[in-house]
């Protein structure tokens, strides 16, 4: 270095003193808000519910590892290696939703705004909606991810070599979107126009649903494990690189032929992303424990948590966008009120 460089860390605005530390005391894999209560989902057995006042209460939900979790803001539904699917409400009430007949692992879960729940065990996807009975659908290989379309009862089931779009209430045959490789996560764009999967190799794949045009989104050094839509679905923020990769989805062509934006680059891998529900801001967690808030327009950064710990494994905003909850893999967690 020829010139003196004061370094970015010195000039960055920090809100680390405003963070209320929370000692969860167990490894955490995700966090979800039920009202203003932050529910930290453990790697096994328990969920730690942290009230707005910072009181921690542990709720036992599974008899083993917790493999997947999804929330609609009023409940969290979790699948476990005990073959059970359970729901947790804001008051800490636990309900058994389903038990796999063969006690297989419940690998994936998805929730529909109207109350329908989908889950998978092995190659079988299940849906239970309102009054209707449980329905199931088998795909050719183990289910890698599940997502409900924002409109109608339509379930995307990701698997090896593509995604199956299943309409549980229709007799019509399921539609298959093919793309070679193993698809391990799936999301619909909020406007229902695009479907994006996270693949086993470090890449995303997308389809424009109107004409099934393919969108290859590659260049990641690592697998994408976290995806979050910015407010209004204008862009998809993703983990997997040493910067937040934001794919543009505002136009009818989505990211076709466009470069993604790269925000908040650090000397560490982005491990979790969570877009603010009301404003063009996102929170990004890194493999070295750093958490930044980033303004989407200009990439301005605010430091929420310093580096030097386990990777950030959980990150979530409450529905109003006034609280940010986070946790590192070892359960060192915090809440930030804006």
């Amino acid at each position, binding site marked *: 270095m020829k010139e003196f460089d004061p370094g970015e860390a010195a000039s960055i605005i920090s809100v680390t003193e405003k963070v209320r530390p929370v000692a969860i005391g167990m490894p955490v894999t995700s966090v979800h808000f039920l009202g203003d209560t932050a529910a930290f989902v453990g790697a*096994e057995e328990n969920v730690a519910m942290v009230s707005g006042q910072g009181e921690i209460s542990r709720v036992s939900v599974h008899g083993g*590892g917790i493999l997947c979790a999804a929330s609609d803001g009023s409940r969290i539904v979790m699948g476990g*290696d005990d073959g059970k699917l359970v729901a947790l409400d804001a008051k800490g009430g636990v309900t058994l939703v389903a038990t796999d007949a063969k006690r*297989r692992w419940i*690998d994936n879960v998805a929730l529909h705004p109207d109350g329908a729940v989908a889950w998978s065990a092995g190659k079988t996807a299940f849906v239970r909606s309102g009054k209707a009975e449980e329905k199931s659908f088998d795909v050719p290989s*183990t289910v890698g991810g599940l997502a409900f379309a924002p409109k109608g009862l339509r379930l995307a089931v990701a698997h*090896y070599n593509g995604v199956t779009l299943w309409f549980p209430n229709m007799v019509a045959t399921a539609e298959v979107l093919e793309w070679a*490789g193993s698809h391990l996560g799936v999301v619909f764009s909020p406007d229902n126009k695009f479907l994006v999967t996270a693949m*086993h190799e470090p*890449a995303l794949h997308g389809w424009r649903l109107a004409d099934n045009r393919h969108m290859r989104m590659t260049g990641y050094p690592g697998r994408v494990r976290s995806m979050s839509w910015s407010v209004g679905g204008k862009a998809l923020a993703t983990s997997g690189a040493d910067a937040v990769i934001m794919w543009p989805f505002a136009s009818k062509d989505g990211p076709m032929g466009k470069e993604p934006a790269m925000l908040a680059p650090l000397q560490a891998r982005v491990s979790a992303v969570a877009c603010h529900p009301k404003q063009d801001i996102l929170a990004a967690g890194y493999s070295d424990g750093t958490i930044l808030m980033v303004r989407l327009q200009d990439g301005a950064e605010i430091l929420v948590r310093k580096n030097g710990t386990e990777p950030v494994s959980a990150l979530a905003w409450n529905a109003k966008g006034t609280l940010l909850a986070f946790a590192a893999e070892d359960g060192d967690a915090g809440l930030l009120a804006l």
Partner: protein
Amino acid sequence: MPELTSSKIPVTVLTGYLGAGKTTLLNRILSENHGKKYAVIVNEFGEIGIDNDLVIGADEEVFEMNNGCICCTVRGDLVRILDGLMKRKGKFDAIIVETTGLADPAPVAQTFFVDEDVQRNARLDAVVTVADAKWLSDRLKDAPEAKNQIAFADVIVLNKTDLVSRPELAEVEARIRAINPYAKLHRTERCQVALADVLERGAFDLDRILEIEPEFLEAGDGHDHHDHDHHHDHGHNHGGLKHYHDEDMQSLSLRTSKPLDPAKFMPWLQDLVASEGQKILRSKGILAFSDDDERYVFQGVHMMLEGDHQRAWKDGEPRESRLVFIGRELPEQMIRDGFESCITT
């Protein structure tokens, strides 16, 4: 580095043709009083007689990777299961993956080379193949899977030795050695093998590639057997023992006491596994490069290679390079010529 390695959970891959005794060995491992807890990934539920909540059923899904390399396959189900098991870290000390009798061990091994998350948490310890002393010779003739499993093995448990005569035993061992002279071989009845001989072997640990000498057959009395028609004796008798040549699966060993030119050797090795990787099941080497005071070690599975400097050459230690390839229809002369061209003159 060492602390990283030790925190990774060792994974033993248990293979073997149908009926060889995999489940017997598995039940032994689980029931023996060793104070360790194993998570077991099996293909058939219900065969294990031990109550263990960490027995997971797998579907053996072999996935191709999207990297243009056709033999680069991984076990998709294993990626998912290991990911899930890592949520229960601390509840078990090691993982055992039992494959079906017809499985090729390569996708399992390659999963550990390819998947970043798997690599972060777990390490492949060894491929252990259980073979049936009575039927293996027949299976080597009619079942390519059985041959693959022998060729791939780090440890071979030659089971049911009580069901064969001593000449028959010598015969089957010679057949095994024709394919894979490097694996540790244990003769057992009902899989009575010391667990230390099958677990915690570190066979894929670069730091433990210390010796790659063939395991010579012990002198036996099986000199009077007859060759089957599609095998032939190629005349290299070690210690007067019968030595077979397997027509389609061989091992090839190369050595030189002259230093290798790294600028020639590395591209040659990479080109070799890129072009012949489908045929090469396993490769290993300890290398002495010119102007380099450290031993370089590498190992590979098909087209995947990993290598690193291991340690400084010791005073008085002969700076010798040794390489081993095990594979199907290996282009021997081409490999020998290529290797020769990498030797400094």
